[in-house]
Each structure stands twice: as C-alpha cells, then as structure tokens.
C-alpha cells in the first residue's frame, strides 16, 4: 500500500489552527451579515476535529472499485476523470451538458461536514464545494419535477466492481426536489483544500450531511429531474433495509447495525461509541423538510 509522505498532507494541526482562525473570523462576519454564513459548516452538535486526510482517503465505501474499504484507494488511482461532462436533463425546459471545467469554475467554499455511514461509523470531512441549487439554477426546472436523480458513471473498464452484479449499475441515488435545493446539499469538488481524490468520488460528487453516506452519489455524470421517486441503488437491492429518505435517525434501527450509536473513525481502540444524533446533528437546518411525516415509515 502506498504510504503518504508527510509533506503531501497538510499537517492537520496547522490545518486545524487555520480552521479555528477562519472560524473566529467567520463569527465576526456572520454577526455583520447574518445571511448564509451560519449554514456553511452548519454545526452538527457533536462535530469533532476533522478526520485525518489519510483516513478520509483510504477508508471508503465505493463499490464501483470493490467492496473492501481499502479497495477504492488502491484501485481508483488511474481512474479517468477528464474529459468529463455532467448532463442535467429530465423535467427541465432545456437540458444541458456541462463540461467539468465549467462546474469547477463555480466558486467552492470549505464546508466541514459530518459523514455518518449506515454501517455505524462517522467522519468529519473538510469538503470543498457549493450548494447543489447553484448548479440546478443553470436550468429551468419544470413544475412537474418532484425529484432529482443522480447517476454515477458506468465505466467497468476502470471500475472493476461494476463487472460484478453487486448492485444494479450504474449507481443511482436521489432526493426530493426540496431536499436537493436545500443549501446544505453540497456539490463536492475537493477536500482538505485540494481537488477531490478519485476514491472519494472525483471529479464531482454530491454530499448530503443529514443522510447516510450511501445517499451521496459519487463520480456523477447525470442529474435528472423526475416526476417519480427514483429507484435508488440500495433501495433497489434491499427495500426493507434501505429507504428512499435514509435520514440519519437513531430511532430507526437497521436490521444489521444499531443506529443509536456510532464509532468515530480515527479514534483509538479504547474510545467508546458516541450517540448518533437525529439528522446527524443537522436537525435545526433540515427538520422542517419533514414536518408532518412519519419518519419511522419513511425511513
């Protein structure tokens, strides 16, 4: 396995110091502007220090490259991410196909968000990205559109996992339109101040911090506005286990994993599990999206 040279990584201590500096500035600014600032780095209640770059980039669920956690890091090295285009189609007035360069030109900001995997572990990741709504605003969405579907690239030549029927390829994920337009729904272009590593979903992925990790599709080539609820990959594989919403919810148990607690990646062997929070700690921002809904039924 490839080892990271120390110089390759932003030393996290410096990184974290820089963070707290920016944060302290941020608070000052938000007091002046109190507009969208509080949403960025929305404070999940048990947000810890960012997970190390090494853990974020070597411990991945990206079944297109294999089912082992280390597979994506080993096998995605030569994954082709250029040329790359993203199509926005479906219930729109005029579909468009954007070259990746154009999308990366949209101004990314740092968003330190918590990732909670359905398997019962979590990371804190300093992503680079912007709100998906900025991208969706490039098209005119028809009033018939109710959902947004994300499609991962199908490239079995390079994605060896796609040669086996582990899931119905290509990987499909989706959101309700209002979830997709929520400012916390992020188009991710990088992490730790660098461009997005292949194993984390280069060149472009989505990240929805209040939902289990598998909702956040990677290496996206198509964004489709639809009338009907998308037939998402894991729901398709096992509807009893994985719902369409898949909001982080400590009260709804998964048949395999307890969702009441989670392990924090990178912690020592003696560190205890921590309590999982409703909506992964982002309830203040997103709970209103589900008012009146029975989240035990709509898991």
């Amino acid at each position, binding site marked *: 396995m490839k080892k990271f040279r120390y110089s390759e990584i932003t030393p996290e201590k410096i990184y974290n110091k820089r963070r707290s500096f920016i944060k302290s500035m941020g608070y000052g600014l938000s007091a002046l502007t109190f507009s969208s600032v509080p949403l960025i780095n929305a404070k999940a209640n048990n947000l810890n220090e960012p997970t190390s770059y090494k853990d974020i980039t*070597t411990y991945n669920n990206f079944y297109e490259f294999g*089912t082992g956690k280390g597979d994506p890091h080993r096998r995605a090295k030569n994954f082709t991410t250029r040329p790359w285009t993203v199509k926005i189609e479906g219930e729109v007035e005029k579909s468009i196909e954007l070259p990746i360069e154009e999308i990366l030109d949209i101004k990314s900001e740092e968003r330190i968000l918590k990732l909670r995997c359905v*398997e019962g572990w979590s990371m804190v990741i300093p992503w680079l990205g912007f709100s998906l709504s900025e991208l969706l605003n490039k098209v005119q969405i028809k009033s018939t559109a109710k959902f947004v579907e994300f499609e991962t690239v199908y490239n079995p030549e390079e994605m060896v996992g796609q040669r086996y029927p*582990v899931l119905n390829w290509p990987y499909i994920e989706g959101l309700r339109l209002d979830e997709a337009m929520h400012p916390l729904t992020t188009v991710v272009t990088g992490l730790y101040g660098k461009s997005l590593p292949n194993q984390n979903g280069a060149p472009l992925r989505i990240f929805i911090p209040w939902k289990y990790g598998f909702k956040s599709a990677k290496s996206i080539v198509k964004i489709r506005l639809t009338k009907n609820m998308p037939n998402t990959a894991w729901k398709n594989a096992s509807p009893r286990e994985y719902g369409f919403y898949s909001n982080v919810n400590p009260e709804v148990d998964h*048949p395999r994993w*307890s969702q009441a607690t989670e*392990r924090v990646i990178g912690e020592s062997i003696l560190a205890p599990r921590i309590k999982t929070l409703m909506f992964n700690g982002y309830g203040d921002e997103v709970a209103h999206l589900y008012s009146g809904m029975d989240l035990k039924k709509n898991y």
Partner: protein
Amino acid sequence: MKNYFKPAVFLLSLWPIYIITYQLIYNKLGPEPVDRIVNHFGEWTLIFVLLTLSMTPLKKITNSLEWIKFRRMLGLFAFFYASVHMLSYVGLDYRFDFEPLIDDVLKKKFIFIGFSAWLLLIPLAITSSDKMVRILKKNWKKLHRLVYVISIFGVLHFIWLSKTIFFKPLIFLIILIILLLFRINLKKFNLS
C-alpha cells in the same frame, strides 16, 4: 506421524494472534480498530470451522489417517477464536453494556444466529477430550454432528451481516457447500 507436527500446527494456528499483536503494536489496525479486531477473529473462526470440516474429506482423499489427529485441535481453535470474536464485540465494541447487546441478540438475526453458533460450540468443546469420547460412546458422534449446524449458522451469520454477499461471504459459502456435499457423497458410498 512426526511428533513435531502437532506442536507445529498449534503454533501455526496462533497466526491470527500474531497478526493482531503486530498490528496493535505497530498501530496498523487502521481507521476502525475495534471493527477490525472483531471482524478479524470472526473470519478466522470461520476459517477454523471449515478447516476442521476439511479433515475427514482429506482423510478419504489421501487415504491417510493423519489428518484426523488435527481435527480436535482445529476445532478447539475454532471455539477459541469464536470466543475471542464474541468477547471483543461485547467488551471492546459495547463495553459490556448489556442492554443494547441483548437488544441486538433479539432483534438482529445475524447476531442471534452467530450467538447461537457460539453456544452450540460450548458442548462440543467440553466433550472434546478422550475421556468424554469414551464416556459418551456412540452419543459422542451424534453430539459432534452439531458442527454441521454450527458451520451453517456461522456462514449465515457472515452473509447476513454483510451488505452484499460479494465476495468473501460467497467464498465461505461455496467452500462450506463443497465440504458438506462430501458428507452426503461419502454416506452414499458407504451404503453401496
């Protein structure tokens, strides 16, 4: 049989312990060390169950009785690793917090079946000595046929806890089926 074979197999059977000790000392357990330890011993339990089940087929294939002499040791190692596996889950992962654990056993079928497999291993481990073989006579063989149930439970445990059967659970399942098919065929041969 060379008289150093058994000690050699014993030392080799400690391989999973060497690995985990090395990884513990050199901090190579990875980002999720507890999970790593639990899974490591779980997988090795299954490997030892399957190894134990391989001895009889090997005996028939090679026409040599030598293999049977390792069966008990391998079986006891399976029980040992199953116990370490379960203890690391109970102790390291859940810190002996029994409330969520009992909940797990009752609610999650993969834990229920895994725990059952471990319980069933206990009588086999207790009755593994020569003395018990003599005391139980014919019943010993009947009792120890439980290992077939245990092996099926163990592999089901692995399949059910995995998000997908690809590939490790599938590999274990295929090997188990082959080993169990051997039993059916052998019986047919004996009858004819």
